[in-house]
């Protein structure tokens, strides 16, 4: 879809303000009615290095990022050197005339003339916005909102730079314009990244407590919630470490607060004992794990889908859990809600597994109708329970009646040891078996409520692409392109990766001539999980583990070789 899709990359050093350009441009584009997919690539440092903020934009819905670049805004020379090979045929490179680089595809901007140095990024924004055909007032409004909170003087200067740079750009040769088809009747959409959608989904579910320890790429979930804590009446607490974070959240949940934690792999490693505690005490908790490449510190600011098996098997002892892996911003919102619902319903740990790509990927989404979304069923505090109340009563569903401490005359016990129905520790080995069975029966209920995978395309395709989580967009687009070429293709995307219910997807696997798994890791973890659960062996795999997100191009290129 070359004509209607444009991939704009802004590159430079950390601290040069490229994220600001990106954000303002993204906001303007979404308000103009376009769809966007943002990919952020940055290093583990605050200044210097090489970062990019890439916006893929189209009037049609898109969900994937793109490797070839149509418009490269290079804030430093390094950006040119690193990315000029990625330029598409009609690609343009927008640079400072002072860089002393030139060529047919260069747009040389006289930054020095257009702005004082600290506002250079705004000049870039001005030029870009004209090349893309964005209305001046649209961009100006976005900018004013953004800087509005800061000082007035700055707002004034920014706006002068914007006006000036736009004027300069209007005079450019028309061949340098990269106008997208205008959207005639722009829908109102929200500009939101994956982590924000998780935070908002949590708010809509009624989250009341989040404890966390900072860790990329999860931190922005906590920061988003912290910013809304006062308004929404919740507590966000930075803990002394991740162990404290999860134990705090469990204490809060036990005492009645809908609770969550957010972290990344290394921090989650420290929460593993707490996961087991949640299961044993049957305490609801939502755990968000935002993946990045490991082992250990690995590549702290890059993306990977390498922690699926780790999360699935985290915690000593055996117990049921559920794992969501959202593939769109909307899924981040709704499946986070769902995780809260199931955590409360089944009284235990529920996971949302995301990654740096999705965490930082801004997209345009149709506003959620929050008024229609009930908060997660709160425990009825007024209900008068039976005299003989048993917190851990053995039930057919495995779910026992949960009361909160402090609201009835009943005292509520929770124990990390194996315990009797009233929560007291026991060494009765028959009770142990009953309790273990009871807890495991929840898996039946959880399985019955699994969000089924999304199957697209032909029922019996020649090629079925199987994926999970954040690779959804890339896989869908790759499939669409293949179909355009006349190939018979289907896709199967899992937004819930555990439990797996074979009846929901075996006919798709069995019905395809060739099945290929697409995953952002080195060993095909999800394909392995499919095999474990169903026996179906997906031996053909397209894997990526260089820290970058999977793109349609990556899939198409690698399909040739699998």
């Amino acid at each position, binding site marked *: 879809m070359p004509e209607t899709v444009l991939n704009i990359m802004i590159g430079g050093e950390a601290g040069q303000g490229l994220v600001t350009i990106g954000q303002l441009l993204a906001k303007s584009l979404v308000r103009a009615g376009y769809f966007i997919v943002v990919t952020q690539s940055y290093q583990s440092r605050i200044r210097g290095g090489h970062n990019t903020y890439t916006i893929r934009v189209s009037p049609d819905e898109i969900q994937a990022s793109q490797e070839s670049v149509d418009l490269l805004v290079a804030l430093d020379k390094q950006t040119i050197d690193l990315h000029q090979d990625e330029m598409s045929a009609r690609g343009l490179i927008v640079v400072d005339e002072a860089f002393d680089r030139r060529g047919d595809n260069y747009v040389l901007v006289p930054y020095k003339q257009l702005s004082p140095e600290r506002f250079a990024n705004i000049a870039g924004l001005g030029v870009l916005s004209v090349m893309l055909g964005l209305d001046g007032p649209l961009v100006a409004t976005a900018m004013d909102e953004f800087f509005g909170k800061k000082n007035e003087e700055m707002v004034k200067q920014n706006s002068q730079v914007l006006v000036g740079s736009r004027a300069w750009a209007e005079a450019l040769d028309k061949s340098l314009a990269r106008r997208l088809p205008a959207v005639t009747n722009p829908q109102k959409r929200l500009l939101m990244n994956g982590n924000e959608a998780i935070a908002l989904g949590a708010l809509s579910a009624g989250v009341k407590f989040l404890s966390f320890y900072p860790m990329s790429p999860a931190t922005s979930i906590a920061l988003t919630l912290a910013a809304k804590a006062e308004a929404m*009446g919740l507590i966000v607490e930075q803990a002394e470490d991740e162990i404290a974070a999860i134990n705090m959240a469990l204490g809060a949940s036990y005492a009645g607060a809908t609770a969550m934690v957010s972290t990344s792999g290394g921090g989650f490693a420290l929460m593993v004992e707490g996961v087991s505690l949640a299961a044993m005490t049957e305490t609801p908790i939502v755990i968000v794990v935002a993946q990045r490449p490991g082992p250990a510190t690995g590549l702290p600011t890059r993306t990977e889908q390498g922690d699926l098996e780790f999360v699935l098997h985290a915690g000593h002892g055996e117990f049921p859990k559920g794992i969501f892996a959202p593939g769109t911003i909307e899924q981040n919102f709704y499946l986070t809600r769902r995780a809260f619902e199931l955590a409360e319903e089944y009284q235990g740990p529920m996971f949302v597994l995301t990654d740096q790509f999705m965490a930082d990927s801004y997209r345009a989404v149709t506003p959620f109708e929050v008024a229609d979304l009930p908060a997660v069923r709160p425990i009825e505090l007024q209900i008068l329970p039976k005299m003989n109340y048993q917190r851990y009563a053995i039930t057919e569903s495995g779910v026992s009646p949960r009361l909160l401490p*402090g609201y009835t005359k009943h005292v509520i016990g929770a124990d*990390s040891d194996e315990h009797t129905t009233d929560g007291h520790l026991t060494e009765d080995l028959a009770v142990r078996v009953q309790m273990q069975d009871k807890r495991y029966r929840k898996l039946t209920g959880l399985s019955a409520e699994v969000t089924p995978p999304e199957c697209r395309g032909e029922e019996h395709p020649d090629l079925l692409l199987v994926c999970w989580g954040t690779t959804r967009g890339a896989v869908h687009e790759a499939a669409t392109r293949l179909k355009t070429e006349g190939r018979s293709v289907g896709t199967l995307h899992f937004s819930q990766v555990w439990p797996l219910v074979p009846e929901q997807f075996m006919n798709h696997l069995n019905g395809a001539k060739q099945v290929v798994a697409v995953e952002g890791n080195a060993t095909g973890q999800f394909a392995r999980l499919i095999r474990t659960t169903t026996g179906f062996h997906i031996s053909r795999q397209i894997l990526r583990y260089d820290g970058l997100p999977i793109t349609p191009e990556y899939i198409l290129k690698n399909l040739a070789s699998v």
Partner: protein
Amino acid sequence: MVSFEGYGNYETAWCPGCGNHAILEALKKALVTAELLPYRVLIVSGIGQAAKSPHYLNVNFFNGLHGRALPAATGAKLANPDLNVIVESGDGCNYGEGGNHFLAAIRRNIDVTLLVHDNQVYGLTKGQASPTTAEGFVTKAQPAGVPSIPFNPVAVATAMQAGFVARGFSGNVDHLSDLIVKAMAHPGFALVDIMQPCVSFNKVNTFAWYKQRCQPVSEDHDPTDWEQAMKVAFTWGDRIPIGVIYHNQRPAFETHFSALKRGPLIKQPVNTTKLAGILESFA
């Protein structure tokens, strides 16, 4: 009506002669004195002999992980500040595995009463050194004697200006009970480090050893005078002062959260209008 009996009478799994029995009694007495109804009390514990305590009381309890009682208690208190939250656990649990949470709880000043059964040894795991074990103490895990110097929790808490710092002795139940009452009444973090003989694994710091040393702080000790308190806090030897050593009036951690002005978190519905407004800000 709050009564001693109302707090139940359970068979314990502790050794006969263990200091834990007396601490349990002192706590029960304190709860009765404070006229706390069982269902309004939450005891959070870790793992260890001391940490079994809440199983022997008719109260709400969260018997969590070894070393992690304080964070769980902090979360519970923040979720529902109406609960009277006590943490009860051993020296290993709180100062060993849980050392980092001890520091954080002091810094936060969360309104939780921390009762540490300090037997200067790991009881449940059969007698290894704990952070409060004396230098040179010989155990199967430290056959050449403990090479580290002991942790003085009362001194560190006072140095860090914890809200309320006290030391008690299981051999002096009334005194201890009184300390616990005061600690619970204190609106902020309150530490009661309790000297407790372990008859099975600590043959040095025995009942007699403590009995001889544990003496109430002098009558004229002013626990609001930090400099004076520091002197008392660092006293450890032939005399081990027991009593309230230090306290201050720092606001409790929970008072900092606007969300709690409206009561326990569970009672606050989601304000969908505000939420809609927030979503709107993303447009």
